[in-house]
């Protein structure tokens, strides 16, 4: 496990200028079983990201995607969005701000090899404050999993 952590910088907190993804908890999962894994995010005060279902087609949604193996990501659940009104919007926008969590329901295939593995994912987001927007970003995320 130590070796895995040393080899993968993505096990540390992932930070951009506005968003921090906390290092994930250690996950143990049995072959053929399922587990929910939380990804904890923190946005810099004053900033928000569009939710997974923005109110305008032109806005870029928050999206977490995972590699296809060694675990299967069966469902990604986002928190309930906040409807916020900003100086630049006539109507409230569906956003996330502050601290929030995204939960992924993983399943370990019965055929998976036991041992420590990494699950790699990408978090796509686009952040704004009340006056300006930053370019969309793809942030690499990873969780350490022990398959038993």
């Amino acid at each position: 496990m130590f070796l895995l952590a040393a080899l993968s910088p993505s096990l540390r907190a992932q930070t951009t200028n506005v968003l921090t993804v906390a290092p994930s908890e250690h996950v143990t999962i049995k072959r053929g079983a399922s587990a929910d894994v939380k990804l904890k995010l923190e946005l810099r005060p004053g900033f928000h990201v569009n939710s997974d279902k923005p109110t305008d087609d032109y806005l870029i949604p928050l999206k977490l995607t995972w590699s296809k193996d060694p675990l299967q990501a069966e469902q990604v659940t986002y928190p309930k969005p906040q409807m916020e009104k900003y100086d630049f919007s006539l109507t409230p926008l569906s956003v996330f701000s502050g601290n929030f969590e995204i939960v992924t329901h993983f399943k370990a295939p019965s055929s998976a090899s036991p041992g420590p593995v990494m699950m790699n994912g990408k978090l796509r987001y686009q952040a704004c404050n009340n006056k300006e927007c930053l370019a969309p970003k793809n942030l690499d995320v990873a969780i350490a999993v022990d398959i038993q």
Partner: protein
Amino acid sequence: MLKPILAGLCVVTASVFLWTACSYAPTTAKAAVKAEKDRKVAPEFTLKDANGQTVHLVDYKGKVVLLDFWATWCAPCKVEIPWFMEFEQTFKDKGFSVLGVSMDEDGWSAVKPYIQDLKVNYRIVLGNDQVGSLYGGVDSLPTTFLIDRQGKIASVHIGLSRGKEDFKNDIINLLDAPRAGARVPSRGALAFFTRAND
């Protein structure tokens, strides 16, 4: 009893007179633009517009240019676009142009429907990181540069401005400035003309 009424009338009359006098005075644009000696040359670029035409910034030399870095996903940018359309309409015959630089990664497939939807009346080109770097990175949108007739950056607006008057005052100031090598025009003439047409 009559004295306070008369005094009140005098105050109201004086206020109306002052308000009227000020309303018709030529607008003096606030000095939001940099002094000429402090302006730097706007970096040259070559980009394509929605019709596939090549656009060089140098083609606009001699005009005042509002160069707007924006994107379809930028909601604050959407607020400013109607202002810029109005400026294009109002000032295009006075040596002014708006040039929008879209920073959309998805290119024209994202930009064309958007500008058609908003009926944008000014030229849009597709930007890239290279051009963004030339202009200091353009980390946040909207970022808008006002370029004078000599092709120098006179002001930079980062983020959604407080209102369109911020831009309008700067544009009038730049359009009203004497052209290089030209006779000095009567001061405030354009500002007065614009104010009268508001």
